[in-house]
């Protein structure tokens, strides 16, 4: 019973972090219908940036996430202006190939800059826990999860309560309509893409504390992100949160009760199962929006 509870706590904490890591992908797909396969690469970039600054300054890597996310905001902007917007003009079907290319090249660049050995940030609370009776709550996971929820809450508030957020949602609802109220659609899209990358920067900071990572870890991470959004229904932020918790629990239960070696396979098994059996996602949000044409 304790083991089960312990596993569930662990799964939920990780789920919160996964949700943060997937939020950028979800946002970009929901608004633009673009599958950003560079998401894993952006995440790893955020992790390396936080780790590097932590090494240099000794400050808390999670707090350094603010700086990583600022850097990724810029990278996201460049990625949109330099690649995504251009490819969309030529052939929208190729955006996923282009972002995939960015992911592959990006992995190479990271390896050239940071080398190919295992990294992870180990602040003072690394590997320590709070204890509640016989249960333990690892501090790093807890802080990361709280940080993730704060950032997600901030993103949600930004989308709901600011003009930038309203403009982004308006573009998602109807581009033509957005133009007619005077929104510069191209600019709103670029800001949205950059914003998605910036939240991923926070995700990277969390990753740097919770996991060891290599340049090619991006493969595993894009797999997890895809799993989260497939579970939650592509393009839905609340769906992504729920999907993330399901994945976190699935991985935790697998490593506790089955075999830790199969944990990394959980995201892919879930993806295949969901897409074969229930493509609309666990929570019934459809992959395709049905346009009502009268």
């Amino acid at each position, binding site marked *: 019973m304790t083991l089960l509870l312990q596993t569930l706590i662990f799964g939920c904490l990780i789920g919160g972090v996964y949700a943060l890591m997937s939020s950028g992908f979800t946002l970009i*797909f929901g608004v633009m219908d673009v*599958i950003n*396969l560079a998401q894993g690469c952006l995440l790893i970039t955020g992790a390396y940036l936080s780790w590097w600054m932590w090494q240099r300054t000794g400050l808390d890597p999670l707090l350094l996430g603010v700086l990583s996310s600022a850097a990724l905001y810029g990278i996201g902007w460049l990625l949109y202006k330099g*690649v995504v917007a*251009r*490819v969309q003009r*030529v*052939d929208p*079907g*190729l955006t*996923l*190939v*282009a972002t*995939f*290319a*960015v*992911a*592959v*090249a*990006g*992995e*190479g*660049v990271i*390896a*050239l800059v940071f080398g*190919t050995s295992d990294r992870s940030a180990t602040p003072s609370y690394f590997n320590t826990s709070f204890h509640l009776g016989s249960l333990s709550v690892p501090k790093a996971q807890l802080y990361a999860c709280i940080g993730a929820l704060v950032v997600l809450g901030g993103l949600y508030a930004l989308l709901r309560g600011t003009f930038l957020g309203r403009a982004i949602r308006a573009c998602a609802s109807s581009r033509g309509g957005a133009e007619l109220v005077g929104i510069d659609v191209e600019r709103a899209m670029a800001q949205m893409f950059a914003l998605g990358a910036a939240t991923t920067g926070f995700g990277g900071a969390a990753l740097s504390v919770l996991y060891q990572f290599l*340049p090619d870890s991006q*493969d595993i991470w*894009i*797999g997890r992100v*895809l*799993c989260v959004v*497939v579970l939650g229904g*592509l393009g839905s932020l609340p769906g992504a949160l729920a999907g993330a918790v399901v994945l976190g629990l699935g991985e935790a239960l697998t490593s506790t009760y089955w*075999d830790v*070696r*199969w944990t*990394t*396979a959980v*995201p*892919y*098994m879930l*993806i*295949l199962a969901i*897409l*074969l059996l229930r*493509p609309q996602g666990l929570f019934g949000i459809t*992959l*395709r929006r049905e346009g*009502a*044409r*009268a």
Partner: protein
Amino acid sequence: MTARNRRLLRRGAPALGVLLLALVPLTGDIYYQNMLIMTFVLAVLASGWNTMAGYTGYVSLGHSAFIGIGAYTAGVASAHWGVSPFLVAPLGGVAAALVALLLSVVTRRTRGPAFVIVTFALLELLGLTVRNWTSVTGGSKGLLMPLPTWGVDIQDWPFYYTLLGLLVLAVALAAGIARTKLGIGLVAIRDDEDKAAGIGISTPAYKSLAFMASAVLVGVAGAVYGYYVSFLDPGAMFDIVLSVEAVLAALMGGRGTVWGPVLGAFILEPLSEVTNSHLGGSDAGALRLVFFGGLLLAVTLLLPRGILPQAAEWLRRRRTRGATSPVGRRLADAELPATPVMRPRAQTEDTALLRLTGVSRRFGGLVAVDDCGFEVTRGSITALIGPNGSGKTTVFNLVDGTYPVTAGRIDFDGRRIDQLGPTRRTFAGIGRTYQLPRLFPSLTVLQNVAAACGEFRPGNLLRSAVSGAEAARATELLEFVGLGDYLTARATDLSYGQRKLVELAQVLMLEPQLILLDEPCAGINPTLIRRMAALIQALNRAGQTFLIVEHDMNFVLSLSDPVVVLSRGTVIAHGAPDDISADEQVREAYLGADFALDAATAGGTA
């Protein structure tokens, strides 16, 4: 260049290429032999990828998984039975095709993004499974293949010639598919999947076949490749970089073409060898990633169509410079050719071919069609008219299955059809055209017509669409509508009115019992309007039933009987043209209903 020379070149060049490649091993140069072996593997992989992603438009990013599936299937089988991996290599192809069949289920209900994700997940999952399933696959330690049994002096010839043979087969398969109804159906799916479903292309079956075809030879090649490298390890066999190379090769050479992926592979693999030998040291792997990723990015940004299509376009422009484009030419007001004979259908007793009873359709709060009911009598030209927004096109969309009905029933030819999907309704005998003609832009006029299928017969899929009975029929129909001179033109090069005629021919190819025409006259010139009317009348005399939505009142009143008038989604009048044009209520509907005004003035503020 004359046509004969061109044909000679088209047949001769590949034969010469294969002959030259066959001679390479005789030089005894092991370096080039190995480089070509790798090139063949990549070319087979890229060619397979192209069948699904290039023809059908479903991009896969995990296609190298089929290499691994083939290699491990043959490897495990050969270890199990103690036979040469060559003997069991076909099993690798079978396994790959079966996995493809299973995964194609994903494409039944979803489009683009889901397929990309599922192929990527497949690649990663198989890699992990092979790594973890140590008892069978040897895990990360790998699986050692038996040593070749032949003498050292013939080097790697068996691998070389087998893979060359597979490449020839792969190209033949790709070329073969491109010529069949299956192949042009796949391109139709890529261009406009909903429209494809509406002209009788059974999209799930087509997509499954395409995915299997794209996997099977890759599986066999994987088996041979695994034997060649003599050692199977999960990292190399389920390698995402190999997928990247395949995508890159196909994109660079030209996706959707037969030779593009092969050309791409022959450019890319030597390039990769060169960079390999020049990039030494600890950073080699990273530099390769930057190189391939950067090259792929450059190709998508700068050469998104690929080398071959770009070159073909350039040649075409040079050749047609000075010649008049078909668009500029006017159609002559010529005599109509003989009306094509339509397949006789067994008829039921019912005189009403189509019957709508209490049909409604809501979009959120908007009621587009409201308790609508009317009949289309066999052999009639029934017109459906009404002001803008009265729900005419929605009625078409309900009849052909684009939208499900919210309430009510639709009967066609004595059976209820409102639960059937669009393709099933096409097979039942309903064909329709669109307000804005929806032709497949990548196909020629002839292919656009030949792609249509009036019924599903598996054997039909492999029939040629460029020659033989299907093409002959399509040609006959195009001649009938007056476009016999435009068979090889691209659909996009035609004028708007000509496209409407092609769409009519496309629908006739289905040999439907009922043809729905959505505004056949909108936006076309008076000559074409007369031609359209003459065609409709000729077909009608031959027994063809029509339901026509049209705004042009002269056209409607001179051609059709009876006329059904819709307003606000409901039938407000039904009768002979003369009665309709004299009907006060109809005029009200067109000019503005006074009851709205009465309500407004009753509102007080005005």
